[in-house]
């Protein structure tokens, strides 16, 4: 069953039409939501709810528009909202954060990325990403994980293209600055950023 057939089935109220779409998009959607929320359970909840909503609101999908971008737009928006809500209730237990980060940095498991750069650099980059403001993090995920173009990103976050580009530009600049800092600075900065939240 291809995507068009699946959507036609859904339009007729057939739940089975949703299955191929779930199987096609679930990994990408949960991973994108995870990268924004940094919480897998939340990410799965968001994506499940988005699929159910997509089933119920399939009438809003224009006939010739692909399901994927329409669906991912909904997932990303929900993930952003969940992240904004979550920040109000995030734990301020700096000790736990420190332990988690220390564990992360101490992880000796070699990864395939070692072929092109060191583990420390990769983890510093991950921490630096985590320390970015929410909209910039979202921009980075949309561009470098989902691979959206500027126009698509603008559509997803409902902002002008110029704003999206500026967020990416600022994020790049900040990441460059952070990665150019002396070793260890990134970890301290990330801890401070986390404890501020």
């Amino acid at each position, binding site marked *: 069953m291809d995507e068009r057939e699946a959507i036609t089935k859904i339009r007729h109220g057939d*739940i089975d039409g*949703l299955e191929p779409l779930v199987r096609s998009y679930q990994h990408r959607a949960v991973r994108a939501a995870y990268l924004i929320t940094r919480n*897998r359970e939340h990410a*799965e909840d968001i994506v499940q709810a988005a699929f159910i909503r997509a089933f119920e609101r399939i009438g809003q999908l224009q006939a010739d528009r692909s399901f994927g971008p329409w669906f991912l737009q909904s997932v990303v928006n929900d993930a952003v909202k969940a992240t904004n809500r979550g920040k109000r209730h995030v734990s301020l237990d700096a000790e736990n954060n420190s332990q988690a980060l220390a564990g992360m940095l101490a992880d000796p498991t070699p990864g395939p990325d070692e072929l092109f750069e060191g583990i420390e650099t990769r983890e510093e980059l991950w921490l630096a*990403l985590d320390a970015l403001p929410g909209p910039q993090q979202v921009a980075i995920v949309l561009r470098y994980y989902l691979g959206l173009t500027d126009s698509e990103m603008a559509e997803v976050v409902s902002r002008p293209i110029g704003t999206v580009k500026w967020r990416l530009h600022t994020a*790049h600049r900040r990441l460059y600055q952070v990665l150019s800092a002396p070793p260890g600075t990134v970890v301290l900065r990330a801890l401070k950023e986390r404890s501020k939240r």
Partner: protein
Amino acid sequence: MKDYSLAVRLARLLGEQAEQAVPSDLDLWPEIRDALDRRRARVRSNHWHHATRPSATREPNLSMASAPIDRFRLPETVRKPSLIRQLFAFGSAVTAFVVFAAVLIAVVRPPNGVDRGTGVQSRSVGSIDQSLYVVTSVGVSMIDPDRKRRVFSVDAPFSPDAILSPDGTRLYVAGVGDHGRLAALDAASGTELWRTDVSDRVAYHFGIGPSALAISQDGEHLYVLSARDDPNSTDPTAALYWIRVLDSRTGLIAGESAPVFRSTSEACLPQLQTSSDAATLYLVCQRTAVIRMIDLASLSALDRSITVQGRRIIGSVLSPSGETLYVVSDRSTGLWMSMIDTRSRVIVHEVELSTDTNRGGALALSGDGQRLAIGMTAASSPQAISDIRELRIFEIDSWREIARLAVEPAATGQSLVFGRLEQSLYYASRSLGSAHDSGGNKVSRLDTSTGQTETITVVTGDILHVLAAADD
């Protein structure tokens, strides 16, 4: 820190982290199915509830004042669960348990570590002499389309354009490395021949590299459209654009024009084309449907420009001789083709190619210059996410439509190119992944005689356009 581009690192890092956190054996379908079934059961139950709700006509003696709660009391036969309802309730309990168990398993199971790639999309595709060049937002890869394997890759995270020399021995790539340099590569090995800085942009990071490239018919000169921050504008994307002429062998700058136009980076979407006599450079602004001309003898912009029919230009292609520039544009009522004589700098012929409301999305000219392929996207499709689902092929001599083919998977962006034997068309399409496929951009080969499609490779980056064609 090693000299790897930030974009490459980010794409890989995000892909790895996401795959570690969310393994590929994730299966949300049972829970979603169950949730939908339960919702439906609730809806059915509510419908039934409302249908059997006692109405004033059925129970005329019901007193609102004395028993407001009883107003909605169901008949005794309804309130007592029947055997079927009891079975249904038992089934729901079992289902709930299964869902709970599934959630528990999903939460505690360890990641299986299967590498499924990051699935970012490709930017452009081009090929020549049994090789396929894929220019992406993270770099340039040379693919062997027959063996379906990558031969080499070069980091070019800011590349808006790349071109092959007319003899196919060199590949020129804009936006190489973290600083958006212009580089010449040996097209067979990927060895860098030279690299140069041809941009002065500072404020607007994404405009640091060249905006468009063109090469003279003899391959001697490279024309580069670059941008400089516009000092008179507060818009960070505003820029002054000008042309530099480079010696294609050495990368040395041979000449530079005054600014040829002022624009924000997204207002024009430029393409560069050269005339056969190397006298004129055509700057095609796709978004504004205006073609500016630069006189290469004086390196100055001409006072007049060419405006073609329609809202925007889908694309432009030069005839093999370079004497004719074909420009296809979109109108609200169909497609319009304008033929520009590159020597006299005027439109010599205009043809209405179609009269339906579907839009064109990509353009390719066969190597012999006899056939023009146009990828079509539905009129209702948003421009940002336009999928090309149909291909129309026109015979240049008569401008007659000679074939119409379905494109599946749908092509994305301006990624269309004829194969050298002109039977095949290569294109890139976006795939968001499935249970057996992590997504990414597929480069596919469409056999125009049979309509069959074959996947050549999966690449990373944003699709913009196609450069040239490979053999079958």
